[in-house]
């Protein structure tokens, strides 16, 4: 029952897009709060680099590559549906989903190897932040995978339009951007 054509709206923006950007703004505050706390705690302490050295930067670099690529496939899915290419849409959505699952898989492997080496969340402040930040991020990746999976299923029945893919893409790219900051903050410093 929307009557966009007759309303005094700011032209060119759909409600869905505004809603998703506002949601992302609130998410920036959540991760920003967490990351800011990490930066403050780290700069105010000593010895965290030694702890961080126990992380595997190469494995995380591969994970970063995985997530970056999944961002590309996600936006390619959007480009495909805009051109009316249904097959391309499903292919790229599937790739995005698989890359997301790969990310989580590598993360799970990382977690288990840390825990087996004796590094749990309560081992020390660095590890508390590491698990909390990457854990919250991983939950967001999982949510994104579920959203993309729903789109994929709907696409088979031709119930997906470009707008929905675009909105899901905004969320997925945001999750990627968070990782773009988590990776150097945790693994490279």
């Amino acid at each position, binding site marked *: 029952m929307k009557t966009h054509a007759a309303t005094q709206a*700011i032209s*060119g*923006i*759909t409600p869905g*897009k*505004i809603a998703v*950007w*506002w949601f*992302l*703004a*609130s998410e*920036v*505050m959540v991760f*920003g*709060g967490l*990351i*800011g706390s990490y*930066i*403050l*705690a780290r*700069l*105010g302490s000593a010895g965290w680099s030694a702890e961080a050295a126990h992380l595997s*930067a190469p494995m995380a*670099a591969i994970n*970063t*590559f995985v997530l*970056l*690529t999944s*961002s*590309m496939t*996600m*936006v*390619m899915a959007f*480009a495909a*549906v*805009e*051109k*009316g290419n249904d097959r391309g849409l499903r292919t790229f959505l599937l790739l995005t989903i698989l890359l997301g699952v790969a990310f989580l898989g590598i993360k799970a492997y990382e977690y288990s190897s840390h825990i087996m080496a004796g590094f749990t969340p309560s081992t020390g402040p660095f590890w508390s932040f590491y698990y909390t930040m990457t854990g919250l991020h991983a939950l967001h990746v999982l949510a994104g995978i579920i959203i993309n999976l729903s789109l994929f299923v709907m696409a088979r029945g031709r119930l997906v*339009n*470009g*707008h929905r893919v*675009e909105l899901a*893409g*905004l969320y997925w*790219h*945001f999750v*990627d*951007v968070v990782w*773009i*900051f988590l*990776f*150097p903050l945790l693994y*490279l*410093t």
Partner: protein
Amino acid sequence: MSSERAHPNYVAIWVWLVVLMIAGVAASYLPLGKGAVIALIFAIAATKAVLVALNYMHLKFETGLIYAIAIIPIVLVLAMTLILFPDFVFRR
């Protein structure tokens, strides 16, 4: 909404992202001072984020309102973190 608007070359952006990622990893091995390395790595990360935001999230093509919604929280987070430096980083 299936407009045929011009969009960036997504693959080219991806190439840049990968290049920057490798640069960031390499930077962590550079024999510079700790502060310089951190600044460099952070700048590289910020560049990657901006590339994703402008091109993949189409921020380049959006109106001022969307820009504001995207930028204001970042400014807020930075302000909050900086304001707290005296209490956590510059402890006496």
